[in-house]
């Protein structure tokens, strides 16, 4: 088998890997940030619901939620394998990202909120203009961890037949009989993606750093 074609076939799966990540990571961030705000600033009931959500979602293996969404709940909603996979990963990631953002909110000193209220901002204005900008800066470092996890977990959608990197490595391994080169190629691609994403986020973190608030 032609080596160039072999690698090219597996490499084509990167589109799906990046696609799943591009859906799961931002949707997890939006939901996670929202839930974190509810968990910190919400009432007693909301706090408890958010805490339960976080505990349950972090306790379910992504593959289980993915199979539930695709096979079990298929009567109510008919999702394509790609969307079922991306949404499940997004939901699970939202729980992790909620904890990341919650930690970051709590790391902003309480005095900031008091000062903001003192100069006449409403609670909502204070959260949006004072707390969140600092929070999200602080969250970038732990968040790059989550990005790496999502890139790697995106391989799980192979169980639904999405032809991403891992599934392609399996198929080409079977037809050529060279499993080791196939899986090594897949491993290298994942490594390159994770390495590139953590470098980019590292640069972003540097750029957004507030000099007076190390």
């Amino acid at each position, binding site marked *: *088998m*032609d080596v160039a*074609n*072999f690698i*090219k*076939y597996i490499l*084509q799966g990167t589109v799906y890997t990046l696609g799943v990540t591009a859906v799961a990571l931002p949707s997890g961030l939006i939901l996670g940030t929202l839930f974190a705000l509810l968990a910190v600033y919400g009432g007693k*009931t909301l706090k*408890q*619901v958010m805490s*339960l*959500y976080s505990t*349950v979602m972090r306790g379910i293996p992504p593959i*289980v939620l993915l*199979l*539930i969404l*695709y*096979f*079990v709940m*298929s*009567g109510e909603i008919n999702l394509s394998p790609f969307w079922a996979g991306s949404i499940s990963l997004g939901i699970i990631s939202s729980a992790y990202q909620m904890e990341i953002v919650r930690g970051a909110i709590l790391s902003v000193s309480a005095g900031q909120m008091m000062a903001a209220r003192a100069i006449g901002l409403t609670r909502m204005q204070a959260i949006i203009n004072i707390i969140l900008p600092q929070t999200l800066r602080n969250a970038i470092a732990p968040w790059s961890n989550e990005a790496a996890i999502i890139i790697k977990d995106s391989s799980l959608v*192979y*169980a*639904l*037949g999405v*032809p991403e990197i891992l*599934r392609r490595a*399996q*198929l*080409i*391994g*079977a*037809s050529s009989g060279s499993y080791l080169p196939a899986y090594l190629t897949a491993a290298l691609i994942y490594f390159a993606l994770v390495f590139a994403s953590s470098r980019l986020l590292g640069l972003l973190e540097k750029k957004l750093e507030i000099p007076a608030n190390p």
Partner: protein
Amino acid sequence: MKKGLILLALVILITGSLLGCQPEAPLEQTSNPPSSPSKLDSINTAGKIMVGTSADYPPYESVDESGKYIGFDIELMAAIAEGMGVKLEWVDMPFDSLIAAVQENKIDLSISCFNYSEERDQQVDFSEAYYTSKDAFLVAKGFSGTIAKPEDVVTLKVGVQSGTVQDDWLTSNLIDTGLLKEENLSRYERVDQAALDLQAGRVDVLMLDEVPAKNLVSQYEGFNIVLSAELSTGPLNIVLPDGDVALKAEIDKQIKALQDSGKIEELAQKYFSE
């Protein structure tokens, strides 16, 4: 806290129903009650049939580097779709996911070297067998003994291709039981080497799949199949949605037509003989 409890109950319920549905078909999940319309109608309306396969099992199903599906099952299904007059759309999935995908209507049917089994039959239906591979016992010119049953070979020198299902069968049924002496079994890497030794008289009988055996009979003068039997192999069936009688009838009709026209035999020659 009340909301929390409801959510927790919901999660337990979902997880419970998931666990429950694997071993036996749960009552509320008879996916196709007799009154429901047949899949055949929606296939004909859409003009295409969605077929699941796990394309990692050559020579039955695999992909080439361009991502094209190739193999015995693949070409057979293409012929079935052609006979039905619909387009064929392949869906690749890991083998474990295929039955669930048929049950949940994610695909219309699945062909992936499935053997009928009772547990599977409770969850889905099976077509008639489209191919039954048999084992053949092949001898050369001048063979004077008789092989009426497989155990008759124990007094002879036997040849087999190593790593095949026939090798497994001989090893566990004749060698491990002490009926056939280890030194009387020759394992060959390739079928053509085994055939040359059979011709030269170094072994008395070869056990191999019937399709390549027939091939050898046509290539070597005096070669003869003395016994064919289903020992190491079995029938292959297409997996269909549970209780969909009309679809099963149509698929069975197409399989029958391809058997009668010799198409299946031709594909078997193409993929299973060296």
